[in-house]
């Protein structure tokens, strides 16, 4: 069981470039989440999914899009990167809303 994996681990982008972050989980979890973590701000929810084919906006969705075409994968896209999107991005999944979230190792993104 690999748990929750994230690809890539680190990326540098120039302003205006696009990219996709991949989150994969092998635990058959229904719910998946994308967060960003910035110093002193804790974790802020970007988007989440309550099942295959569904997505919903979180607290800070602007500038991001997501897709969940397969139950095990949750993709986060940046269409036109901005320096304000420099952050560490975490993906998480959970089998049930009462249960703990399982986190990936994070993707460090630097936008120049």
């Amino acid at each position: 069981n690999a748990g929750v994996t994230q690809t890539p681990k680190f990326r540098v982008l120039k302003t205006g470039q696009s990219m996709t972050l991949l989150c994969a989980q092998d635990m058959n979890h229904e719910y998946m989440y994308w967060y960003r973590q910035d110093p002193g701000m804790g974790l802020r929810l970007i988007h989440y999914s309550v099942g295959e084919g569904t997505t919903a906006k979180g607290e800070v969705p602007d500038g991001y899009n997501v897709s969940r075409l397969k139950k095990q994968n949750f993709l986060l896209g940046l269409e036109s990167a901005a320096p304000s999107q420099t952050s560490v991005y975490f993906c998480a999944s959970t089998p049930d809303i009462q249960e703990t979230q399982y986190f990936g190792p994070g993707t460090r993104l630097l936008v120049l």
Partner: protein
Amino acid sequence: AQSVTQLDSQVPVFEEAPVELRCNYSSSVSVYLFWYVQYPNQGLQLLLKYLSGSTLVKGINGFEAEFNKSQTSFHLRKPSVHISDTAEYFCAVKKGGSYIPTFGRGTSLIVHP
């Protein structure tokens, strides 16, 4: 909307001393409560959780937390800390029936030798 307040952004402590990390939340309705730990350059891992039942919850690595409904608090404690406990600690609250947990801003525990 639910809010979570971690009262200390940083807690320095000497090794083998006791520690308490404080967490208060806004809602008194049915909630699920979690403490997570984040070691440097890693994702978050669950320390312990409260869903129902006994208000004293024991977790991994000798940590425990007490759910206090009247004070809407869920403080994390450890009687004797180790250097290896140096990490960021996050309190999270999920309202019953909600898909989305609310995280506090984190408390940095720094254990000095």
